[in-house]
C-alpha cells in the first residue's frame, strides 16, 4: 500500500510539473507585447522598457519559468498585471465559496447518482429504469448553466423560494449559507448525477450477472445485502473513475454556475481576469485548480485499493 501511495504521488508530481509548463507556456501565445495591454497604445518606449524590466520580460524564458515555478512552490503566484494585488491572496480570498460549491455538488451528485443508478439496475427494464435512462441522457446533454437560469427564473424570481444571487458566509449565517447555495448546488450537481447514475446502472447490471452473485444467492443472502454489500463494491470500481472525472468537470463548470448566481468565487475571478487579460491571475487560478483536482483524484485513486484488493497488490 505504501509503495502504491508513493508511485501515485510521484505520478502526480510529474503531472503537475507538466501542467505548470503548459500553463506557463500560455504567455508565449500572447500576440504582440503584453505591456501594450497595460500601458495602452500611447506609451513611450521608456515606459515600455521600464515595465518590461520590472515584469522580467527581458530575461530568457527558462529563467522566467524558473522564477515563476519557484515562486509558485513557495505559495507566490505573482501579482495581478492590473492591480498589483497578489494572485495567491486573490485566490485564497475566494476559494472557500468555490470549494463549498464543488464539494457539496460532488456529494449530492454521487449520492443521487448512485441511488438512481443502483435502483434502475435492480429494476432493470422497469418503468423507473426507463425514466432514469432518459433522464440521465437529458441531464448529460443539458448545459448546466441553462438549468441554473431556468431554476433562477422559475423557482427564484417567480416563486421567490430561494435567493437568486449572492453568497453568505457559513460562519455568518448557516441557514442563509445553505439557502444561497441550494440552487447553485442543484445546478452543478445535475449533470454529474446523470453521468454517475448512467455508469452506476451499467456497472451494477454487469456485476449482477457475475458468477459470484449466484453463490451469494445460494448462501441465502437477501437481495439488499447482495446488492448493497457485495455487488455495489465491485460495481463501484468503474463508477469511481467517473466520480474522479467529475471533480475536474465540476471545478470547470462552477465558473458558469458562479456567473449565473453571482457568487464571488474563483470562477468569477477567472472570468474577470480573462476579460482583463490579466495573465498572471489566469495562470495562477488554472494551476491551483489543477492541483486541487489532481489531489482529489489521487484520493479517489487510492480508494481503488479498498474496493479492489487485487489492484492494490498488482499496481
Amino acid at each position, binding site marked *: 500500500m505504501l509503495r502504491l501511495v508513493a508511485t501515485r504521488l510521484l505520478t502526480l508530481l510529474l503531472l*503537475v510539473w507538466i501542467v505548470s509548463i503548459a500553463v506557463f507556456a500560455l504567455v508565449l501565445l500572447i500576440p504582440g507585447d503584453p505591456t501594450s495591454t497595460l500601458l495602452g497604445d500611447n506609451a513611450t518606449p521608456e515606459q515600455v522598457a521600464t515595465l518590461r524590466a520590472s515584469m522580467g520580460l527581458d530575461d530568457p524564458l527558462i529563467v522566467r519559468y524558473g522564477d515563476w515555478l519557484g515562486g509558485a512552490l513557495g505559495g507566490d503566484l505573482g501579482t495581478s498585471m492590473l492591480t498589483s494585488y497578489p494572485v495567491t491572496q486573490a485566490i485564497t480570498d475566494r476559494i472557500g465559496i468555490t470549494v463549498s460549491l464543488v464539494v457539496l455538488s460532488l456529494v449530492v451528485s454521487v449520492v443521487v447518482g448512485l441511488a438512481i443508478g443502483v435502483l434502475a439496475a435492480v429494476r432493470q427494464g422497469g418503468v423507473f429504469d426507463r425514466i432514469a435512462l432518459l433522464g440521465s441522457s437529458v441531464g448529460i446533454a443539458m448545459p448546466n448553466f*441553462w438549468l441554473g437560469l431556468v431554476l433562477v427564473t422559475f423557482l427564484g424570481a417567480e416563486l421567490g423560494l430561494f435567493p437568486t444571487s449572492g453568497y453568505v458566509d457559513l460562519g455568518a449565517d448557516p441557514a442563509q449559507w445553505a439557502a444561497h447555495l441550494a440552487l447553485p448546488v442543484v445546478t452543478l450537481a445535475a449533470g454529474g448525477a446523470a453521468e454517475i447514475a448512467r455508469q452506476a446502472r451499467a456497472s451494477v447490471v454487469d456485476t449482477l450477472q457475475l458468477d459470484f452473485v449466484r453463490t451469494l444467492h445460494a448462501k441465502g443472502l437477501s437481495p439488499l445485502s447482495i446488492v448493497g454489500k457485495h455487488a455495489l463494491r465491485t460495481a463501484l470500481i468503474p463508477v469511481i473513475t467517473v466520480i474522479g472525472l467529475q471533480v475536474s468537470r465540476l471545478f470547470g463548470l462552477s465558473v458558469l454556475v458562479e456567473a449565473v448566481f453571482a457568487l464571488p468565487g474563483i470562477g468569477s475571478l477567472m472570468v474577470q481576469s480573462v476579460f482583463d487579460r490579466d495573465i498572471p491571475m489566469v495562470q495562477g487560478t*488554472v494551476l491551483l485548480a489543477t492541483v486541487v483536482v489532481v489531489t482529489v483524484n489521487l484520493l479517489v485513486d487510492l480508494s481503488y485499493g479498498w474496493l479492489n484488493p487485487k489492484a492494490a497488490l498488482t499496481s
Partner: protein
Amino acid sequence: MTALVEKALPATPPESAWRAFRRRFGRQRLAVVMAGVLGVLVLIAVLAPWITPQDPNAQTLLDRLDAPGAEHWLGADDLGRDVASRLIVATRVTIYAGALATVVSMVIGLPFGLLAGYLRGWTDAVLSRIADALMAIPPLLFAMAIVAVLGRGVTNAMIAIGIVTAPRFFRMARGVALVIREETYIEAARSIGCPTSTIVRTHVLPNMASPLIVQVSITMGFAILFEAGLSFLGLGVQPPDASWGSMLQRSTQFAGEAPWLVLLPGLAILLTVLALNTVGDAVRDSVGRENRRLV
C-alpha cells in the same frame, strides 16, 4: 462436441460488416430519429441566410419582448429582434463552432495518438503523460485561459476547446494503434516489407472509422456545450452575431416577462447535444463484436 459440429456447418452467407452495422443501427429507433434531427440541423445551418423569416439583427423597438404569435413565431427579444430568425442563424454559428473545435481537436490528437500507439516506448510514455496532464486541467478553465491569451471571439474559443479536447482523440487513436499493431496481418505486412505509411493507410485508418465516429459525435456535443458556456460568459460569439449560448446571456434579465428567451435556446442546445450523444452511443452499440474493443 456440439460446438465443433456448429463450426463445421456452413453458416448463413457472411453479412458484410457495413450491412450488419446498418441493421443493428436501424433497430435503435431513437437513434435513427436523432440522426434525422442532426440532418435537419445541418440543413438549417447551411440554409440559414435564406430561410430566416426576418432579418435576425433588425431591431424593432416597438416589438420589444413580444410574446410568440403571428408577427414573431417564437417571440422577440429585449431589442425587438425576431427570436425564430436568431435561433436559425445561431444554429449555423453553433454547428460551425462545434465542427471547428472537433476538427482542431482531431488534427492535434489523431497524429500524436497514432504515433504513440504505433511507436510505443519513449514516444508513447512522453506523449501519454502530456495528454494525462492536459486532461487533468479543468477543461473550461483551460479553454478560458487560452481565450485570455488569444483574445475573445468564437474562432479563438473553438481553437481553445479543440486544444482542450485533443487528448480524447489522442487516447482513442493510441488505443486503436496499440490493438491493431498486435494483429497478425500487420505483422505479415511488415514482414513482407510494407512501409509504415502504407500499413497505416491501408490497415490502421479503416479500422478507426467507427471509434472515430463515436469520438467525433461525443466531442462535438462537448464542444457545443462549451461554446454555449463560453458565449454565455461573453468570451465566445461576439454581438451582434448570435449563438444559442450568447442568446442566453441577456435572457435572465427579462426572464420574468419573456421566459421563452431562456427556454428556447437552452432546449435547442439540449436537443442537439442529446442527438449527438444518442447517435454516438448507437454507433458504438452497432459495431460488431469483432471491433468492440476498439470503441
